[in-house]
């Protein structure tokens, strides 16, 4: 009885409703995330192992993994560099139209991705507005895919870095200057380490988004087997052929991949954060 009471005592905190909110959170996450995702695995294991292996190690599928992951990583890297730059611009300088630029950043969030894909394709085909001036091909090459993935991932980095930059203590920069550092040293040694955790979050989000992106890519990719076929497209193809087991097997591979990568990024972030929080 005493033990039961002491357990009850522990539960009593300042904030009420711990049990209720925990229960609701678990239910919600299960319903929306865990259940659908576990269906992927359950569906996969219903087929025999040899067949699964054959499906997921097919050269055409292997090529798509490389392309999807490679292009997503490249796009996320580009987004980190330019996303931080844009966030810096928006926070630190006042210029006419700043509010409009700020609003435009969110557009890739709002736009149906297929529209983005079509727009990019018409711009960059051989006789498109921009494509005609370029000596190399953009549309229907991996370059085009990276372009589309960069487009849809941009807001993630800007929107994660922006608030951190806004809250950055300007006195730290003044301290750095008074200690004799120039602007570059101040940025590299003082500002950048402060932005790193947010930039990593932005990177992870942009990468995860790019990995699963379908709509904008299929138009600009050209979808040539072994060259410009992304994994989500292969899954769609399998589904259209009523090969549900094959589709879920590939999906499971992607899922594991994304999970491992996000885990690594989270660990990195935890390491950088641990120091000063």
């Amino acid at each position, binding site marked *: 009885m005493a033990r039961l009471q002491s357990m009850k005592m522990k539960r009593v905190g300042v904030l009420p409703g711990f049990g209720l909110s925990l229960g609701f959170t678990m239910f919600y996450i299960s319903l929306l995330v865990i259940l659908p995702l576990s269906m992927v695995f359950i569906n996969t294991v219903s087929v025999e192992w040899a067949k699964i292996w054959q499906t997921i190690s097919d050269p055409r599928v292997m090529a798509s993994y490389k392309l999807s992951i490679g292009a997503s990583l490249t796009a996320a890297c580009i987004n980190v560099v330019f996303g931080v730059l844009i966030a810096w611009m928006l926070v630190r300088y006042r210029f006419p139209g700043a509010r409009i630029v700020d609003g435009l950043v969110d557009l890739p969030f709002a736009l149906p991705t297929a529209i983005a894909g079509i727009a990019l394709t018409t711009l960059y085909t051989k006789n498109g507005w921009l494509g005609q001036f370029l000596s190399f091909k953009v549309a229907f090459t991996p370059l085009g895919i990276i372009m589309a993935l960069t487009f849809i991932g941009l807001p993630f980095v800007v929107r994660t870095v922006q608030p951190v930059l806004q809250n950055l*203590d300007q*006195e*730290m920069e*003044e*301290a*750095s*200057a*008074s*200690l*004799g*550092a*120039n602007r570059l*040293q101040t940025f590299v*040694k*003082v500002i950048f*380490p*402060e932005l790193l955790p947010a930039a990593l979050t932005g990177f992870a989000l942009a990468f995860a988004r790019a990995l699963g992106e379908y709509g904008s890519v299929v138009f600009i990719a050209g979808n040539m087997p072994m060259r410009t076929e992304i994994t989500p497209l292969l899954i769609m193809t399998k589904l259209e052929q009523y090969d549900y087991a094959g589709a879920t097997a590939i999906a499971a591979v992607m899922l594991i991949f994304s999970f491992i990568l996000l885990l690594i990024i989270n660990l990195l972030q935890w390491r*950088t954060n641990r*120091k*000063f*929080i």
Partner: protein
Amino acid sequence: MSIQIRNISKSFGTFRALDQINIDIQTGELIALLGPSGSGKTSLLRIIAGLEAANQGAILFGDEDITHVSTKERKVGFVFQHYALFRHMTVFDNIAYGLRVRPRKSRPSKPEIEKKVKELIKLVKLEAFSNRYPSHLSGGQRQRVALARALAVEPKVLLLDEPFGALDAKVRKDLRRWLRKLHNDYQITSIFVTHDQEEALDVADRIVVMNEGKVEQIGTPEEVYDYPNSPFVYHFLGNVNLFKGRLHNGKLRQGHFEVDAPEFLGAENTEAVGYVRPHDINIEREKSPDAVAATVIYIHMIGAVVQLELIRTDTGDVLEAELTKEHFRSLNLITGVEVYVKPKQLKVFIPEDYSI
């Protein structure tokens, strides 16, 4: 390094933050810029550091005009109220920062940096904390790191912006003693900004009292405390009692109460205010012709002095007085008794604006 501040003015929009400031600071002095918030003291400090630019005027370090020299080149140590430590660096790295960012040819070698930083860590008594991050330190420790960091670059001038403002009373007192000692040992010309008069009186060689962007008075702590040159300085440094009255024939008079005001012999029938420190008020039990009757309403008896609150019988004004314990006992006072109050020393100002 001596500092000359010449005719410095600064406006933010239409607000005049600093108006024609002139201060000469000798090499090795410890100066307090004292004033209420909005008096421009922090702006002045930031202009000296080069963190802000003045609209006009010049700053000289020694004989060199550094008005247009950047902060980076000024070689000043700046200590911020909220420390401004680099959060992602350890105590050691924070202090080493100024040495590590030097251009390669003037940068000390790694062992030299380490030696120097260890010396400073010892100086600020943080030997056990050199690998900690700022978030794991208390406020006083953080401010000591900030000081060590500023001292690492061997600044010619040390500037401190309300350095102890965010700390609790006990730590604040310890740290300002420590600053005083540090300054005695190193003799760096130092300027610190504060709104705490006690801190300024306690630490500084000279105090610059500022109000509304102007210098009110410059002097040693004794000078500004004992001989304030304006009502503002009287009010700002310590408690003060007001005796309002009219000047006539070299006397400040109100009702039957009058005191000598020889410096205003020429003034005829002019409204004026006498300023008296609480410890300059004499209290008697016997009635005398030129004293004011008052009633004791509160006795505060902590420490060596006894503080009394009194209400004047004639005007209803509240007066504050300070007595030694012995004197207090000999008077045999309790709340509610009537006493007779007379200023021992009184300074008269003719108010420009009677609303003060």
